[in-house]
């Protein structure tokens, strides 16, 4: 009898722990997937979009580069001002020292990723090393293990994010020559647009969403739904629309390839615009 009572009691406790573990949010963490990408057909915009995906995905950069203070919040910082400041820093003695412009930024970014301890941002060094050793792992070694072209794509993305010209080569040499031509004769399609209205008009968002008074209702009324969304959720909703489907709508309606069609800076402008829209501060 005693034994039975003890057994029931013990089982009840174990059961309680099990239930608790099962009512918490359940997430399975899969190994990072290497994206199959046809590198030779990438254009500059595609390369930047790829860089963004690497930054948020396979590169695991956002594990540290976020707003929790573990590392500089690259996505929110004013990179246009910050990066040149780093190069001009008294302590900086890396390969970009004394240089300026987009090329210097490329050197600095590459150095930050391949040899993080070359220059450690104030206050972010490993404990006890007085900012001489960076806690950031080299991106070209395990566990991050990015290839040379992937690293280039990340640099391109960050250069673009900072508003600099993208100076990294495209993945294939042949394409690199072609891109050089492109760079000489920039055309409307290739260079980023600078107004959210233009971008949205260009990409046809108003065809499905009620924007600029289009009255379209294939997609949700963004002025309303956007209010509940944070910046990163908006980015995700636009470049990866099928990851999470808005209530009452179906997947596969919204084009899934906006990442390829937009510059990173364009995406930020659209997100800015949508946030303003949600706050009632933008013309509809």
């Amino acid at each position, binding site marked *: 009898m005693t034994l039975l009572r003890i057994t029931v009691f013990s089982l009840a406790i174990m059961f309680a722990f099990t239930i608790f573990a099962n009512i918490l*949010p359940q997430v399975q963490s899969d190994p990072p997937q290497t994206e199959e990408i046809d590198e030779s057909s990438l254009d500059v915009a595609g390369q930047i979009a790829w860089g963004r995906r690497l930054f948020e995905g396979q590169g695991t950069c956002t594990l540290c580069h976020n707003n929790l203070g573990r590392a500089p919040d690259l996505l929110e910082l004013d990179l246009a001002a910050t990066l040149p400041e780093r190069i001009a820093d008294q302590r900086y003695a890396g390969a970009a020292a004394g240089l300026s412009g987009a090329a210097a930024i490329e050197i600095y970014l590459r150095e930050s990723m391949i040899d993080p301890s070359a220059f450690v941002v104030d206050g972010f060094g490993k404990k006890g090393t007085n900012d001489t050793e960076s806690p950031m792992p080299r991106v070209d070694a395990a566990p991050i293990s990015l290839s040379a072209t992937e690293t280039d794509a990340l640099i391109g993305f960050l250069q673009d994010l900072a508003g600099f010209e993208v100076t990294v080569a495209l993945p294939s040499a042949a394409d690199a020559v072609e891109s050089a031509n492109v760079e000489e004769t920039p055309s409307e399609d290739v260079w980023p647009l600078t107004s959210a209205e233009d971008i949205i008009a260009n990409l046809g968002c108003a065809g499905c969403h009620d924007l600029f008074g289009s009255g379209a209702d294939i997609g949700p009324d963004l002025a309303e739904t956007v209010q509940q969304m944070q910046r990163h959720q908006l980015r995700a909703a636009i470049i990866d629309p099928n990851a999470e489907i808005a209530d009452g709508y179906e997947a596969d309606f919204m084009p899934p390839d906006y990442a390829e069609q937009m510059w990173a800076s364009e995406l930020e402008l659209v997100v800015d615009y949508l946030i303003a829209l949600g706050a009632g501060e933008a013309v509809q």
Partner: protein
Amino acid sequence: MGGRTFVWVFAQMHLFLAAFVLAVPLFVLIIELLGVLTKDPRYDVMAHEFMKISMAAYSFTALTGGALAIALFLFYPVVMGYLMQVFRGQTLIYAALFVMESLFLYIYYYSWGVLRYGNRKWVHLSIGLVLNAVGLTLMFVANAWATFMMSPSGVDPSTGAVIGTVWEATRNPLWNPLNLHRFLANIAYGGAIVGAYAAYRFLSAKNAAERAHYDWMGYTSNFIAVCGFLPLPFAGYWLMAEIYAYSQQMGITAMGGILAWLFIIQAVLIGTIILAANYYLWCGLGRTRKGATYAPYVKYIAVVIVGGFLVWVTPHTLILTPQEIRLLGGTNHGFLGPLGIMPAKNMAVNLMLVATFLSFQLFNRSSREPTVSWARTGNLLIVALYVVGVLNIVGAGIYGYITPTVYKVGASVPQVATTISIIIFALIIDGFMSRGAKRSKVHWGRMSTRSQYALFVLPIAFTWLMGLMGYIRSSVRTHWHVYTIMKDTSPEAYIPTIGQAGNVITMITLIFMGVIVFVFWLSQMGEIKQAKPGGKISK
């Protein structure tokens, strides 16, 4: 059930049993020594009884160890091949140590009666010492393999080629933190399990003498469990700090990424353990006349512990949806800030530990009336110690809350130091005060049935907790067998959800409990003698 789950179950089973059989001789030796020093024969009887339980479990440890080895070589031949290459001759040393462990264990146990008094007792104690030295070495060697997989050293980082000595691979960055962590946890675990044995025997005791004996044994077991447990959070803190130092990425994966929720369960389990241990101690105050008069104070300790528990398990943020968590580490996020680095929770943990220690001190005091001339001053000193200490812990917690993120972690160091100081100084003052103290009788056996159930909660919560920690220790390697060196490319390279892990852990806990019940039954059966047909019945 895939190969991974198979290995998981056997590894965890082996760990539970090994932790138990390695821990018991550690405190048995101390109790045996106490028996010699105090000349109180009860200690010796109890020490021997503890050993008896652990002996019955020993063969199961070897059995699961063998099964684990087979499963590992069967399902992960490449990984094992690589580890053999890294650790070379050490595998043989391990085997030799295992043989020695068995040898000394049997000699220690079976020579108990022969080497009982005088100089012979010292020979017996020496055998116990060697046994423990061998046992600990055995564990340290096994730990080296586990930590090598988390923070490999002595190999070429880009190719994995073995370039260092076995010692360099052994002395990897996480080896010592894990050694300490497991050492303490084993003691707590061993204490909890023999406590359940005592509680079971107490509940089925036939007479007052038996009840008194098993009550005392239960109290001692709980004491051992709490002794191992109190410093454990600090060892955990060290381990975590070393993980961050080794790889910030691994640290963030553990504390701020998808595994962050796991620490809520950990909080619930540890809270359960602290509550159960304290509840048992409070019930025990009824064993002395003076203890009963402390009842009003227990209320306040209970409030601190329950309050701390609630602070600890309350997530600081809105509940995350799976979608949101999936974005962690994948996207910029703003959810886990206050949860990841938790000054309020640190404060709660430290206060709970202090309260637990206070419960012990109260019981200890309940049977001793200090007679030293400065007794009043001494008491005031102890009270002041607690007050200042608690204020310090709370103050550091608040400071941690209002300072920028980077400094938050720093605030927990003074908190930990304060808790340790309270314990050490209170023990020292109490030690001097109890010199020549008037002892009043402790009525062992005067315990409620309900109090004994607390002693069953402890091993279950501990077992589950150890299972959970095993899950996270393996998970921080993410999709690597040997972190940064050898990838796990199998379909089972994912980190299971916390629910799946919980189900496996419960399954393992169930199997383990089954084994333990069998072990208890075996050791109890050893005492029963069948009546001679037609003869007198004897026990």
